[in-house]
């Protein structure tokens, strides 16, 4: 071979003086302390990096009531899409800071807010007023007006947002996308 390894790296090198016990002990000590120090250094760097990457799991984003419009602008019985800002949007979130919901005015004072996310795999369902159905464009999930499953693969009824009326304004409580 044309790539000769440096001779002193080879433990069985016959050119080197035979190792006595203190030398071996010292070598063992140096190996261990080197490995220990390297592990420590790796942990000093690795722990914060992994913690940083996993931070979405520990962070509890705040929830906030968001005004989606005045009570008067919604007609009783109608279901319309409304949108609102997430609880704590980042300055660079742009349009992704927005979330949509399907809001229905049930009567004079009460509203129902449905999540737009299909419970099958999260695609955006659309409300169709004439047949009174929510339909999903991805895998054909269908929901009745009350959000219960009418057809297709969805395993559960549509999720709902807490909704309230305060001083003539309809407010929706920001919530995580309902998965699982």
């Amino acid at each position, binding site marked *: 071979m044309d790539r000769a390894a440096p001779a002193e790296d080879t433990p069985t090198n016959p050119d080197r003086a035979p190792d006595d016990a203190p030398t071996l002990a010292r070598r063992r000590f140096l190996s261990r302390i080197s490995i220990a120090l390297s592990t420590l250094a790796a942990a000093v760097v690795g722990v914060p990096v992994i913690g940083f990457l996993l931070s979405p799991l520990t962070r509890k984003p705040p929830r906030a009531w968001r005004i989606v419009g005045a009570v008067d602008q919604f007609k009783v019985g109608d279901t319309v899409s409304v949108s609102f800002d997430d609880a704590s949007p980042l300055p660079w979130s742009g349009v992704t800071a927005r979330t949509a919901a399907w809001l229905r005015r049930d009567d004079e004072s009460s509203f129902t807010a449905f999540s737009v996310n299909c419970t099958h795999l999260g695609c955006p369902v659309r409300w169709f007023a004439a047949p009174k159905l929510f339909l999903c464009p991805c895998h054909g999930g269908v929901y009745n007006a009350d959000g219960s499953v009418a057809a297709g693969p969805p395993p559960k009824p549509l999720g709902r947002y807490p909704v309230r009326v305060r001083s003539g304004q309809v407010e929706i409580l920001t919530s995580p*996308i309902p998965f699982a």
Partner: protein
Amino acid sequence: MISGFLAWLDDRSGLVTWARHVLEHPVPKRIGWWYVFGSATFIAFMLQVVTGIALATAYVPSSGDAYESLRFISEQALMGRFLRGLHYFGASAMVLLVGIHVARVYVMGAYKFPRELNWLSGALLLLLTLALAFTGQLLRWDQTAVWSVIVAAAQAGRMPVIGQGLAHFVLAGDTVGGTTLSRFFAFHVFFIPALVFLLIGLHLWLVLKHGISEPPQLGEPVDKATYRARYAEMLRREGVPFWPDAAWRDVVFGAGVVSLVALLAVIVGPPALGKPPDPTILQAYPRPDWYFLWYFAILALTPSHLETMVIIVAPLVFGAILLLVPVFNTGERSVKRRPWAAMVVLLIVTVIGTFWVAGERAPWSPDFEAQPLAAGTVRDTSAAVVNGARLFHEKGCEFCHAIGGQGGQRGPDLTLVATRMSPLEMVGRITNGGPNMPGYVSSLTQEELNAIVAFLATRK
């Protein structure tokens, strides 16, 4: 002059000798065109690295600005559209080539002793290629990308116990937002490519260490005790230097791949940007890129009670099988003695192909674009029937049912429904619904119901 410099470089670094050793290492004489797919995958990857770096100099990995930066790259930057096309078709080529390469290695039994680690490192590279394809598709931060992230999180959410946590991890939060895209960007351009580089290094090192597997010979089973000596003897007898005796095919095929990718980038161009990544635009029709379309179809066609199994268990089983392949590392390599190997590949290709076609047609999706039925289709001109045909469209029946070739494929075609259902049966079905059909009792008046049935009764 040059040779003097090379001699100096080699004396100080040993690199020239090493490169010559690599280039001239002996390979079996009889290898042919089936051996070009590994190097072609590597060439496609390098194409991705180069075009990816160029694109990254202009791309803004922020949830709010990425879309506009992509529009800038596509519409204004010099050669930007071409580069995006190269990157897209390069990705397509890489997915396709790595698939062919794995199939070739599997069918030829090239993963057997002593090349088990070649297979394992290659299996990880296959999975990382798919991870790159998925994350890359998301960086085209348009409406489809946003919904793809949500669909991915929803799938992660099906995992028992840790599902909710995983879904949050994928989105980097409660919903899609400012934190989502930059993480996918970092994974796509730093983390996964770094792993790919490391594993390609290991993969190539192993190819050099064990030599390129010789084409399988019927009646020459792999025996751990004799294989290495037999392979060395074969190389001594009839080995040829890799460069240029074998490498010319890699170069010709690789250049062909690059040319085809460039041609497609010019002629077809990159995938068009969809609507902006605004989660409040609900007029969406999310579809994955072609390499995951088959999986999209599987998710649509799986019966509900099997769904979590398919989403969670099937990928784990597939991964386990992939990693267990080299357990069977001795014996015959020839596919004539391993006909099931060819069948497995054929089966996988057929399954993916079938679901791919289904995903392309997506008959399970309602047809939101369905137009009102044409007068020629309705035929009958009596007021009740015409009114029924109008309601058939307005009330959304046509989203799922086709008549005369117009309408969705979700439910049965109703062109000739009157030949199999009486008006009374129609009333019952429409009012109460049926398997996979909602009941319309609350959304139709009696007159509307009568009109629709009057119309359907003419369909014979």
